[in-house]
């Protein structure tokens, strides 16, 4: 029973494809891909809509207000209203803009974000595209985002846009490095770049209870935190949203966009966020595996989306909690702390491996990380004491 529920989507796709039996293989392949794409788009656009309204409501809760509650029950139809509004708005293109580039930027950014979704395993046998170098694909595609952002900034021919784009690129490049390097230990330990293999490697349970997710190893936990922070930066979310800091540079590279193009940017940002969190869940949180072996009867995709949601919730929570950091702080943090720490994760993973992957390895890699962490924090400590702020004029 639970098996058939688990595989319900897979079976549905097979059933659909079975109608094409006489067609040549390449047709089947294309149709299969199309089905996957549509399924992806359907799920994630819905999720995007849901997310946008939920985020606003949660932020409202955090900030002690209601949030949207007028359109539809509990304001749940708000995204529909927003969508309609965006669609019917006038599409303004600045006169001196580089029109082609200005036009292509939102398309490229959305395409990249959606492509990245394609390699994540959403459930048992539910990876849309299985590529040998899936993780690499994810990052290769993800890296086009930077170009797209730049195109947006350049094409708009506006100083705010340009500044925003530069900031975005600077911080995205800086954090792409730790993002990739924190993935390395997982890849090393599993020995494959295929997400499915990585998920499979986390399938077991220690003593039948504790899942063997990588987040439960010292290096995994560290890498996960680093990955999460870097992902936060990659998706330009608070507290790292300086590229679109409204109070300083209006909306960064999106300043000159309106209407549907703006909506596309917005969507791409959310989808990028889903992709990153999805990857985080895949890499460190055991993908679609259940946290307890007794709960395995619950379908795998439920688990995946539960983890995804949990992580997204943290995103929202952070956005509601933290103020925006300065760009120099972001960069310093990246190069001076995150990067060395992520290298340490690689070493710690190697130590863990060679010490036998058991308790001993756990302890040793913990020691390695602790040493480096202590050393780094001592080195980076500016010895600045924090004191309650005193106000000179606002008393």
């Amino acid at each position, binding site marked *: 029973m639970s098996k058939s529920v688990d595989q319900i989507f897979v079976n549905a796709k097979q059933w659909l494809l079975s109608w094409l039996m006489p067609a040549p293989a390449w047709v089947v392949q294309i149709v299969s891909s199309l089905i996957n794409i549509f399924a992806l788009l359907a799920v994630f656009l819905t999720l995007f809509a849901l997310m946008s309204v939920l985020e606003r409501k949660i932020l409202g809760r955090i900030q002690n207000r209601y949030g949207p509650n007028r359109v539809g029950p509990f304001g749940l139809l708000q995204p529909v209203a927003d969508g309609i509004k965006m669609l019917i708005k006038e599409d303004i293109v600045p006169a001196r803009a580089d029109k082609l580039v200005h036009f292509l930027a939102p398309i490229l950014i959305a395409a990249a974000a959606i492509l990245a979704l394609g390699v994540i395993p959403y459930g048992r046998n539910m990876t849309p595209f299985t590529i040998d170098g899936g993780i690499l694909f994810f990052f*290769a595609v993800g*890296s086009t985002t930077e170009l797209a952002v730049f195109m947006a900034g350049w094409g708009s021919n506006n100083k705010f846009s340009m500044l925003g784009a530069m900031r975005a*690129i600077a911080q995205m490049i800086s954090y792409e490095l730790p993002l990739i390097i924190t993935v390395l230990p997982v890849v090393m330990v599993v020995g494959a770049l295929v997400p499915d293999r990585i998920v499979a490697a986390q399938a077991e349970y220690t003593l039948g209870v504790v899942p063997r997710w990588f987040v439960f190893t010292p290096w995994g936990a560290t890498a996960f935190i680093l990955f999460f922070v870097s992902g936060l930066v990659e998706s330009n979310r608070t507290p790292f949203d300086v590229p679109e800091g409204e109070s300083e540079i209006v909306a960064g590279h999106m300043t000159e966009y309106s209407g549907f193009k703006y909506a596309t940017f917005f969507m791409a940002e959310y989808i990028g966020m889903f992709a990153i969190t999805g990857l985080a869940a895949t890499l460190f949180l055991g993908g679609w595996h259940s946290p307890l072996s007794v709960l395995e009867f619950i379908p795998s995709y439920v688990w995946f989306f539960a983890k995804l949601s949990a992580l997204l919730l943290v995103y929202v929570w952070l956005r509601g909690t933290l103020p925006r950091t300065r760009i120099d702080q972001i960069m310093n943090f990246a190069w001076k702390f995150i990067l060395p720490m992520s290298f340490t994760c690689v070493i710690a993973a190697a130590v863990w491996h060679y010490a036998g992957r058991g308790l001993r390895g756990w302890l040793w890699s913990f020691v390695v990380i602790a040493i480096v962490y202590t050393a780094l924090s001592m080195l980076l400590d500016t010895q600045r004491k924090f004191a309650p702020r005193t106000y000179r004029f606002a008393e």
Partner: protein
Amino acid sequence: MSSAAFVLIAMVTLAAALAAATLQKLMHATLSFAVALVGVAAFFFLLGAEFVGLVLVFVYIGAVAVLIVFTILLTRRDVGKDRGANWGGALLAVAVFGGLAWAVFKTQSVAIGAPHIRALTVKRIGEALMTSYVWPLQCVGLLLTAALIGALVLVMEEKR
């Protein structure tokens, strides 16, 4: 490895390359260059070297293209329009192409179809990198470090 895909990719690639070589706006040329490289990556996919294709995209789009646009940004004052092709260059390029094409057609041994091959997995590449090619790998690592430092030193503010 279908011919249709090949023809499609070849057309896109060469068109983008031509655009990169001739477009007058620097930014457009750079973007075309990126497209051309995506085309090359697609060729790699077609040839069964997915990994290299991904690396190519990763490196060229993610790093080199971004670097180029950044450089364009930093040297903006000079970024007017450049002239497109000049005739001497074009002639020479065509001549080189002619010569190469002639040589390719002339050489009988390259008129062969693709043999059936074992899939080139990342694992195989990794093993090769860590065994037979470990020294080149180290050297490249060193080179990259040196390039990193060199580039930093070069762009540091000149002392006046």
